[in-house]
């Protein structure tokens, strides 16, 4: 099998205590492997370390120990990280705080191109329009402000912005958690379609096991900074081995379960 596209190796992360408080060990030797073209689902409750792991994977947080490898090569220097950040993009949970409120959507989408000096300024509006089309938004959206968009539209804009640099890996951190069910389904369907069209590899983080099951090829269950179970989605969901996974599954509301 090929080297994984993104690989976190034995990551440890300790946050120093604030105001003399005790230090917090957020990650205790966690590894994660993402192969090209697949979706890895990261599940866990608050404090499990899933977001810290994701932040380390794009280099906005430094691990205390362990390393991140991209296409089999360790990423260490600033230059190496800069190169990786073009290929690995992060989509945040709250599409509203992730967008500048006074910047029109078109400018927000063109910004990554400018930062990475990718295409001549004259060609940027065309790129923006193409990307808006790809995520199912009208080209006229480019002139709007974030406040004029619905939650679902904002999350589409967020996805579009992450895709502007044509990344290979997308890390989606709770991106549908704040959305209504019918809109959530639209965004999930879009993500599946984009993954197929663009050959993306996805790390999909959610506390909702129903969404994880739907999206993931493989699943990694985290608890208090450790991985307690990993395997194919079918294995983890149909034959969970760890008691914590079983407890999580039992806590998910299910219309088909017999009433208590």
């Amino acid at each position, binding site marked *: 099998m090929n080297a994984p596209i993104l690989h976190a190796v034995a990551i440890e992360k300790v946050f120093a205590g604030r105001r003399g408080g005790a230090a917090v060990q957020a990650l205790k030797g966690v590894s994660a492997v993402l192969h090209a073209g697949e979706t890895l689902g990261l599940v866990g409750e608050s404090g499990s370390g899933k977001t810290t792991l994701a932040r380390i994977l794009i280099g906005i947080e430094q691990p205390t120990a362990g390393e991140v490898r991209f296409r089999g090569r360790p990423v260490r220097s600033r230059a190496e990280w800069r190169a990786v950040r073009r290929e690995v993009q992060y989509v945040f949970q709250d599409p509203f705080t992730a967008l500048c409120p006074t910047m029109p959507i078109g400018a927000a989408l063109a910004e990554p191109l400018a930062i990475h000096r990718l295409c001549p300024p004259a060609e940027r509006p065309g790129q923006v329009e193409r990307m808006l089309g790809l995520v199912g938004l009208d080209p006229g959206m480019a002139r709007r402000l974030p406040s004029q968009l619905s939650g679902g539209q904002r999350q589409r804009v967020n996805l579009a912005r992450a895709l502007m640099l044509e990344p290979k890996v997308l890390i989606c951190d709770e991106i549908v958690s704040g959305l*209504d069910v019918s809109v959530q389904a639209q965004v999930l*369907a879009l993500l599946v379609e984009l993954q197929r069209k663009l050959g993306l590899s996805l790390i999909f983080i959610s506390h909702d096991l129903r969404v994880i099951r739907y999206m993931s090829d493989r699943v990694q269950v985290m608890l208090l900074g450790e991985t307690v179970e990993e395997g194919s989605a079918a294995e983890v969901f149909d034959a969970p081995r760890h008691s914590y996974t079983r407890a999580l599954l039992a806590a998910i*509301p*299910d219309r088909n379960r017999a009433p208590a």
Partner: protein
Amino acid sequence: MSGPLVRAEGLTVAFPGRDGPRPAVDGVSLVLERGQSLVIAGESGSGKSLLCRTLLGIQPETAAVSGRLEWKGRSLIGLTEAEWRPLRGGSIAMVFQDPTAALNPLLTVGRQIMDAVRAHRRCSGAEARARAIEVLGLAGLPEPERRLASYPFELSGGMRQRVAIALALSAGPELIIADEATTNLDVSIQAQIVNLLIRLRRELGLALIFVTHDLDLAAEVGGELMVIYAGQPVETGEVRQVLADPCHPYTRGLLRSAPTLRSTRAEPLRPIPGQAPRLGTVGAGAPFRDRCSVVVEGLCALRRPGWTEAGPGHRVACHRFARDGRAGLP
């Protein structure tokens, strides 16, 4: 005493708009008997929170309330603040989505609950303290006596929501309204809080209005279900019966958009196209018509559908269902 706790008929809550009033809650009728539970399910903008606030008289001041709304046979419309005061908390209490915002960060848990107790009943500090310990225990907080001295920031999100529930219980209400009270909690905590509310309903004989956007959660809570879209109820009935045999195109669309623990990409979710209409723009006609795949030409655009019986206690407001029954559903 006989008669239901809450009765609403044609309850409408409208905001002023340029072209006349814009109803955000539009002709809601409901009956809630003591000790029963009602789940109101809808998406953002459906008016479910505004409906709850109206039951408590805390809707925005610009909102005009019309129709009938009664508590034990007495009208709640046009009450003065002094008339609302004993009802709010004393008879009807609410648990909000965000317990951090619902609790005062500067006061201890004990102080907040004792204040609430004494707002409704003349009693000594010792009696108020005893009641605070009692309700914290009912809400499932371990070592309730020690919790009195805790500040909200010292508690986890789940514990804070338990404190908010204790606060709601403090003056001995007969109805608790939980508005998305478990939405931001971790799944295992969510399950605990839902079980707590179900247990309180059974053990204390409280009536419960549970507001959620999650139909699976609605099934866990049980009781009556009202599916609401753009301020209008579109389907009502016993929760599990409705979910087993959904008869409104919107309810069916919601169920097909929501993944279950068995959903995989082999059977793609089918999202409802488009988005919910903006506040008060539905006008006459069926509220769901712009996103519906089985619109009845010349009818859905013009006339609001009435109720059609779909089974015992199961009613649907849909022109297509009224005309073609289950055969016409998408």
